[in-house]
């Protein structure tokens, strides 16, 4: 290419650059818009989802409740009727559709307490966990197996058969004791304890002196 042609092209160079600038800016305008992802990245979400720390077992949670551990909040994500029928002690009720109401956010979006979601199994609790985790809320856990597992392990633990290892018997003992804490009574328990009814202490009588009625003082 000879110099003349180059000079010809170069004389338009500012025009060309200006056009490129405007085309690029216009391209931004014409690009199809997509919903931007809020909260944490998908990689972080995945690593949280496959982490073992996500679940808390019923044994762990009963241990915590019995010891009066103050570091966690139990969140029942079932509807209100189920919550009224039965729930874990001190659990608060946040039905899944109302998860992100302002009043509820202060329970689940904080980094002071562990939040333990539970439902009948862990299906709805997992959904709640996923929604909250995506938004970057911290210290979220799911009760493994939910209330169904709670019943089969803590409230009504199965008696291990004789060929099972010693640990199973130990665990059974712990679970049985835990279930007693949560109000289950066993037939052998009644026989063991010769229910000593404590003597009713006589009521203390506190005499309260009545205030003397004041005579209405004279006016003026």
């Amino acid at each position, binding site marked *: 290419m000879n110099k003349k042609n180059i000079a010809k092209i170069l004389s338009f160079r*500012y025009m060309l650059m*200006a056009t490129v*600038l*405007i085309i*690029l*800016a*216009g391209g*931004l*305008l014409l*690009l199809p818009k997509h919903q931007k992802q809020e909260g944490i990245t998908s990689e972080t979400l995945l690593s949280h989802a496959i982490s073992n720390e996500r679940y808390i077992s019923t044994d762990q949670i009963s241990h915590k409740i019995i010891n009066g551990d103050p570091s966690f909040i139990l969140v029942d994500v079932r509807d209100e009727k189920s919550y009224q029928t039965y729930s874990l002690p001190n659990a608060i009720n946040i039905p899944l559709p109302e998860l992100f109401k302002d009043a509820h956010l202060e329970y689940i979006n904080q980094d002071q307490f562990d939040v333990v979601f539970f439902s009948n199994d862990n299906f709805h609790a997992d959904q709640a966990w996923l929604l909250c985790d995506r938004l970057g809320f911290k210290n979220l856990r799911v009760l493994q197996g939910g209330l169904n597992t709670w019943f089969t392990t803590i409230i009504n633990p199965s008696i291990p058969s004789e060929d099972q290892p010693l640990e199973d018997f130990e665990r059974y003992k712990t679970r049985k004791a835990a279930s007693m804490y949560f109000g289950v009574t066993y037939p052998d328990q009644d026989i063991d304890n010769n229910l000593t009814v404590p003597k009713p202490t006589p009521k203390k009588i506190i005499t309260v002196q009545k205030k003397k009625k004041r005579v209405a003082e004279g006016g003026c």
Partner: protein
Amino acid sequence: MGPLLPNGFIPFEWDSIIAIIIGIAFGFVLESSGFSSSRKLAGVFYGYDFAVLKVFFTAAAVSVIGIYYMDYLGYLDITQLYIHPTYLWGAIIGGVIMGVGFVAGGFCPGTSLCAVAIGKLDAWVYVFGIMIGVFLFSELFPLFEPIYDGYFLGNITLIDSFGWNPYWIIFIFAIIAVVSFVIADIIRKRVKKVFYE
């Protein structure tokens, strides 16, 4: 992904070093493109040289387009970028003072330091003036404090406060840039030429 520093792709201990490298590059580019001459800078106001306008306008337009493309493609999260806080009246009054100083002295603070580095006497005087101004401001700070700290609007942008669509803004901004370059060229051709080194 980005910005690189807040997301830990570069350890944050590097930020001062990166700032120094960028600063050196900035100073080098300013000086080598002749921005350490007060005549070139003042030329914008007298109409014989629009290099400053063109350079900074182009820089803004190119970077905003680039940033929004990177944001669109997911390489950069725009919401994580630093937005300078707005102190409304402080910004207006400061802008007027800076503008007057710019026309009168022919330097902006950055280019004045550039010119000091290559030993221009007028730049020495200019920087000395900046120092006096800094001293006066510091001494009279209690007087200026209500303006300095007041009228705080937060880290806002035009897009947030007016609810504009950023893509339209960028498009219009790019057109304004190109139009202003054309107008600048027309004015430059009409104004009497000034020759300087």
